[in-house]
């Protein structure tokens, strides 16, 4: 994720005060809710301090692992498919690049529910694909369908940051690499790939985070056979078991912020990686 470049300045009070509404807002609606989550996670329904919610989380270990498995596979597939696509887009003639980016943005700005639902309608037992092929394939309810859904829904989030990163690499870098003896393939491996790691990292986060926490995709494409961690939270929310829901959310948040911090260690957070 992008860090903002903040130059060192002496504070001038009159101007600094402009940030006051934002600070109040951030405290009230970002920090406070997080405190409330922690509070809920460590209390029972009557409001007494309790560690049962956290202790009870071991019941959900399998769900955690399944979510992790599916989302990691989906992220990996996105990277595998997305990197070459991003590279090809960045290498396309300038006038065509705009069009390609637009082509990528349209599905991205189309609501996730719509996209997921339409895949379901296509892959469903009596759906479009089976009707078209005259077959009786059973796809919905398999792991493959859920992974496909994640890849389909989040692929643009992988491609766009990588594309932005590669297209920002100076033309002279390619030329210098070639000039010094790199074959076209070596140019990618030795120069372009290392220079686009920040794009890859932000692409990976932008795919991993929503796919590990999704509940709609697994509801529709999992056909009710899978419960991912997002489904668990949603179920607790619907049934009003807010303390357990808060506990799971809290743990999930910790894990994700931790892994983000680790990932950011690998790259200079200041360069590249634009979030759309």
């Amino acid at each position: 994720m992008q860090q903002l470049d903040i130059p060192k300045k002496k504070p001038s009070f009159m101007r600094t005060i402009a940030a006051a509404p934002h600070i109040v807002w951030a405290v009230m609606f970002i920090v406070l809710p997080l405190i409330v989550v922690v509070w809920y996670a460590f209390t029972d329904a009557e409001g007494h301090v309790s560690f049962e919610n956290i202790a009870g989380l071991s019941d959900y270990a399998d769900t955690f692992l399944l979510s992790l498995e599916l989302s990691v596979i989906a992220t990996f597939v996105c990277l595998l498919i997305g990197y070459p696509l991003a590279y090809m887009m960045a290498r396309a003639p300038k006038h065509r690049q705009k069009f390609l980016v637009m082509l990528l943005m349209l599905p991205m700005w189309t609501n996730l529910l719509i996209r997921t639902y339409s895949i379901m309608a296509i892959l469903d037992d009596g759906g479009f694909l089976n009707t078209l092929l005259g077959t009786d394939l059973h796809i919905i309810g398999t792991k493959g369908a859920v992974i496909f859904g994640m890849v389909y829904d989040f692929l643009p989030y992988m491609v766009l940051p990588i594309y932005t990163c590669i297209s920002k690499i100076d033309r002279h870098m390619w030329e210098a690499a070639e000039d010094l003896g790199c074959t076209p393939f070596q140019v990618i491996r030795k120069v372009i790939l290392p220079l686009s790691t920040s794009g890859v990292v932000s692409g990976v986060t932008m795919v991993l985070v929503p796919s590990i926490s999704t509940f709609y995709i697994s509801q529709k494409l999992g056909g009710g056979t899978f419960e991912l961690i997002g489904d668990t939270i949603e179920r607790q929310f619907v049934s009003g078991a807010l303390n357990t829901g808060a506990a799971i959310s809290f743990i999930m948040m910790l894990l994700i912020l931790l892994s983000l911090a680790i990932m950011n260690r690998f790259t200079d957070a200041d360069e590249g990686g634009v979030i759309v």
Partner: protein
Amino acid sequence: MAKLIELKGLSKSFDGEKVLNAIDLYIRDGEFITLLGPSGCGKTTMLRIIGGFETADEGRLLFEGTDIGHVPAYKRHINTVFQKYALFPHLNVYENIAFPLRLKKVKEDDIQQRVTDMLKMVALSGFENKSVSTLSGGQQQRVAIARALISHPRVLLLDEPLGALDLKLRKDMQNELKTIQKAIGITFIYVTHDQEEALSMSDTVVVMADGEIQQIGTPTDIYNEPKNAFVADFIGESNIVDGIMLEDKKVKFSSHIFDCVDGGFAKNEAVDVVVRPEDVDVVEPSRGMLTGQVTSVTFKGVHYEIIVDIGGFKWMIQSTDYVAPDAYIGLYIEPDAIHIMKKSKYSGKFGDYSSFSDELDRLSDAELAEEF
């Protein structure tokens, strides 16, 4: 010295605009050759074609007699020092320089030896583990040179490599580049729009304008025997006046007949006459071949720059003696200070100092530099 690279009828257009027009040129092994010209003259395109980053539309590019027009850059024994250095930000100084050797799978101790030697040559010993982004412009420049030279190319291409450096550093690097080139004895092809740089470093200067070669020669030839008004004006200061060649060694301009040393023109042929400002002597009006009124005098340190109006045409004269503004003076010109050129499409465009001002000159230089 043998011909190493040969360009035959090379042409290149971008979006229908001709950038290079039927260029013929050969470059000898081991020489320091400079492509000199204003921005947009095609010199960088020519360099990029030689480097393998562009392909010519027409014509052939020969390297030791074989056509390499379609050989990709990574297979050519030609390396480039890029204008903005293009050092890889993900590698440190050592790894940047070792980059080409690693590609060739050179043995590790061999790499170490060669990189260390190279760093010594560019005076950067001890910088091995620095990140390239922490280096100054001059240091980055040296790393770029080291990296381009490490795989022993036959030719080094340099595209305005000193453009981003300040004046003092520029002068130092000019000397250093010349020393490096002498030491390793390979061909340097150098692109610049700075005429001083070109004259002081090169064995051969190729002056270009509008996608065509205007003149090829040694720095002294180019300065003393410019071929047309463009070259005369672009290299140094020149007074360029219309003249008539009455016969060999007799030329008439500014209503006066002068003795000169050039010949070989038709009788009464219209020509361009070049007189360098430092070759004009200021004398008493009565002894002068030409007389005029001083319109401005500027002190330049080594000399005064004097603008004189002679029959409506403003001449520039450089003299160590002061003359007062508005004074009438005489000019005396030695025969060998007069250089005769054939008329060209550039005649009449250059060499009159009536709109001359230092400030304008500097402004246009800055504009030129910015465009790169």
